[in-house]
């Protein structure tokens, strides 16, 4: 490569540029300090140029960069919400499919009922069964048949099938799978009204309507081979009801049986032969079990579980559940398929499992009577256990509901007696501190479940919406000054940012919610400021400001220099400032406005802010302009021009500096304003303004 001596951008940025080699070449070919120093300077200049270019590029793309980042965060949250919707959908579908699976297994009345209805009925039915359990002594197993549904009950008089003599009164229950008789509890101390007598399997009994002959009225007969039992109803209507219910149950059972048989035949042709034999074989249960003998602890697990749940030893219950599960899997692995003892226990354990889940969910449920003393900490246990039971979706749901309720009560406690800013300070601190705390708890409880985190994001976003709508109602009122408003908004924003450290960025949502009211507030402020400027203009005598004393002047100068305005050059004598009161008051107000605007700034608001800054400034400058146009005296024109210069140069520069510090570039609209009114600085007042297009319309 031909070594070029002069460093250029092209040379330095070429691909095969090797610094060591370049320096070596240089030091070989160049003799003497001055030449080297010249080159060094040149390189230095190149460095600065590149640096500036880089900065310009960064600034140029800065807004785009910020916007993109916001867009991404927005998108992320939308993805979360989408994911939440999907998982909700999934849960719904799963629920639907389990409903139909249950429907297959259990002899529910398979009419034209739809699934939702069925599940509602399921709840009702469970309650009904539970209430029977409370009334009838000795029928604990009532709940242990899955799908058993209550159909009918009533008092019946049992009579002798041969001589028709009264035997006793029974209270009978009809279920989808069986007929249960109970009799009145004669033991007065017994808590329960009835005592269990017998439960007949529906498939093993035949119902016969006894035709009314002579005394035996309203009777029906049950043939339960080899027994026959005759029951007498009080009226023919009640007999008809019983017979209809029996018929209904029988028919439902039949279709059920049919479906089941068909599916079994399909599945295992080898076993179909034995199943094809009469389906209601009353001797089936006489078959001796010669299968494996299971350990006692396994057989006793259902009872153990009952005890654990009753004593609230939930962790222990979980261990039992796991143990039984392990045992069953191991058994199935070695023996191929579960025997009937296993199936029985499995079914019972499953019921306990569901019961345990329900108890735990109750723990988490929001209840107005329940104290929230323990807060989320108190919920930890139930949440953890539910997660272990594989119910994280539900526990997550309940957890978040609990959070909402806690948040609500906490917010209610914030007193409203102090100033708006104080109230907002308290309230936002309560809201976001709680939300941070809840987020922490949430991450603890549901560390790695995407469906839960999306539920959380949705929750957080809802809570924020609740808060912002309340916030807007409280803060955005006509009498609230922009400064107060700004203070509150800034406060809430900084509170909201606290959540970012947990990976939850809701700032964009907050800004979005506040955008419209803020735009309105900015415009209102503009209108008010212009109004005030007009009033000031009327009172403007165009005389220098008199501070009346040296200390007054000093205080005044200090006050303005603190705002960034050095007024020393305008001082004449001991107490005079060569600017009008109107100009000085405007400068102060305008800087406050600018300050508020800059604090409120978001990309979306920038356009409105620029407009407001322009309009308010212009109102003042117009006053100066019209004064100048009407002034003939040279001295006075000079004074007015001085004020114009102060506004358009000194104040504008300061504004631009501040604007740039926050926004990153200078304010275009103020630039434009300065250009439009630059003639004023030279003491020229254009005679006509009618041709001037309004600035704001250009912006649109």
């Amino acid at each position: 490569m031909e070594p070029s001596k002069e460093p250029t951008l092209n040379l330095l940025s070429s691909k095969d540029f090797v610094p060591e080699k370049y320096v070596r070449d240089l030091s070989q070919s160049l003799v003497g300090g001055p030449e080297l120093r010249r080159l060094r300077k040149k390189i230095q200049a190149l460095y600065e140029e590149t640096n500036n270019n880089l900065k310009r590029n960064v600034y140029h793309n800065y807004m785009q960069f910020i916007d993109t980042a916001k867009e991404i965060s927005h998108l992320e949250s939308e993805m979360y919400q989408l994911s939440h919707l999907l998982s909700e959908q999934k849960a719904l579908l799963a629920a639907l499919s389990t409903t139909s699976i249950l429907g297959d297994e259990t002899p529910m009345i398979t009419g034209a009922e739809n699934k939702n209805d069925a599940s509602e009925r399921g709840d009702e039915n469970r309650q009904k069964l539970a209430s029977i359990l409370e009334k009838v002594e000795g029928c604990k197993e009532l709940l242990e048949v899955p799908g058993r549904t209550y159909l009918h009950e009533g008092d019946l008089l049992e009579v002798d099938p041969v001589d028709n003599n009264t035997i006793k009164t029974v209270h009978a229950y009809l279920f989808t799978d069986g007929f249960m008789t109970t009799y009145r509890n004669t033991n007065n101390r017994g808590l329960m009204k009835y005592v269990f007598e017998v439960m007949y399997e529906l498939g093993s009994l035949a119902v016969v309507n006894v035709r009314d002959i002579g005394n035996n009225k309203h009777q029906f007969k049950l043939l339960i081979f080899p027994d026959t039992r005759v029951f007498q109803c009080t009226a023919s209507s009640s007999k008809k009801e019983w017979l209809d219910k029996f018929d209904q149950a029988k028919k439902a059972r039949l279709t059920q049986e049919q479906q089941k048989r068909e599916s079994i035949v399909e599945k295992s042709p080898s076993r179909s032969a034995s199943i094809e034999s009469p389906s209601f074989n009353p001797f089936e249960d006489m078959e001796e079990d010669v299968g494996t003998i299971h350990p006692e602890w396994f057989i006793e697990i259902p009872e153990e579980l009952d005890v654990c749940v009753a004593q609230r030893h939930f962790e222990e219950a979980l261990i039992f559940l796991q143990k039984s599960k392990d045992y069953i899997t191991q058994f199935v692995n070695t023996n191929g398929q579960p025997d009937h003892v296993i199936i029985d226990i499995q079914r019972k354990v499953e019921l306990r499992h569901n019961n345990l889940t329900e108890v735990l969910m109750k723990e988490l449920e929001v209840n107005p009577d329940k104290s929230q003393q323990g807060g989320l900490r108190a919920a930890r246990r139930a949440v953890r256990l539910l997660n272990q039971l594989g119910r994280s979706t539900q526990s997550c749901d309940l957890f978040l509901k609990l959070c909402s309720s806690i948040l609500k009560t906490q917010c209610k406690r914030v007193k409203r007696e102090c100033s708006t800013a104080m109230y907002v300070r308290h309230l936002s601190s309560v809201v976001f501190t709680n939300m941070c705390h809840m987020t922490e708890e949430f991450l603890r409880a549901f560390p790695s479940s995407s469906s839960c985190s999306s539920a959380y994001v949705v929750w957080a976003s809802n809570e924020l919406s609740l808060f912002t709508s309340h916030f807007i109602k409280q803060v955005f009122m006509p009498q609230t000054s922009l400064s107060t408003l700004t203070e509150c908004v800034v406060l809430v924003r900084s509170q909201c940012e606290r959540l970012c450290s947990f990976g939850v960025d809701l700032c964009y949502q907050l800004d979005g919610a506040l955008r419209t009211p803020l735009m309105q507030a900015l415009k209102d402020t503009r209108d008010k400021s212009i109004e005030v400027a007009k009033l000031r203009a009327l009172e403007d005598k165009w005389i220098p400001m008199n501070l009346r004393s040296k200390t007054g002047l000093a205080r005044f100068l200090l006050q303005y220099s603190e705002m960034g305005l050095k007024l020393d050059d305008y001082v004449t004598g001991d107490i005079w400032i060569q600017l009008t009161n109107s100009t000085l008051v405007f400068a102060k107000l305008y800087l406050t406005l600018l300050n508020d605007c800059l604090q409120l700034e978001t990309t979306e608001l920038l356009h409105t802010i620029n407009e407001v800054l322009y309009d308010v400034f212009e109102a003042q400058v117009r006053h100066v302009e019209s004064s100048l146009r009407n002034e003939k005296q040279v001295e006075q024109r000079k004074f007015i021009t001085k004020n114009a210069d102060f506004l358009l140069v000194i104040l504008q520069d300061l504004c631009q500096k501040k604007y740039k510090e926050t926004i990153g570039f200078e304010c275009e609209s103020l630039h434009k304003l300065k250009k439009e009114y630059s003639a004023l600085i030279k003491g020229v007042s254009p005679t006509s303004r009618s041709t001037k297009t309004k600035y704001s319309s250009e912006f649109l």
Partner: protein
Amino acid sequence: MSKKPTAQPALHKVIMVGSGGVGKSALTLQFMYDEFVEDYEPTKADSYRKKILLDGEDVQIDILDTAGQEDYAAIRDNYFRSGEGFLCIFSITEDESFQATQEFREQILRVKNDENIPFLLVGNKSDLEDRRKVSFQEASERAKQWGVPYVETSAKTREHVDKVFYDLMREIRARKMEENKTNNGRGKDKSKKKKLKCTIL
């Protein structure tokens, strides 16, 4: 309750079987109340009881009128189990009902597990001679094959109505007496044997 020791008249349990609409209910009602019902109302399961004089002996007949309709076929077993004698009815005007008697016979034998169960094959609606589809000969051949009597009845004209019930009750009574003689005190054994057989099946 004090009545219990007094000897109750013997109770004979008769079951009416056969396809829907052949006249099971009509026959029963004619026997019970001496009336003919023109309307057809399908039966589910009705039971009747009546005290009658059978060859000079007070007895009670318990009639179980079952459903002929096909949708009840699957739960017939439970009804049949309680029967001591069967009237298997078909309508001579309907060949299908005659064919169906074969199935009823098989089902009864299976459930009762007894080849000699009291049983009558009954061809009903004999008054509708002009619409006859099943010949007397055809039906009596089947009865002979089964080793049971064949009787033609009319629930409308009451022809042979009493006869079928009385004949069946006589058979039942005869069976009971026979059983008492052969298995005196061993009744329990027999039932156990039956059960075992069922399990094997």
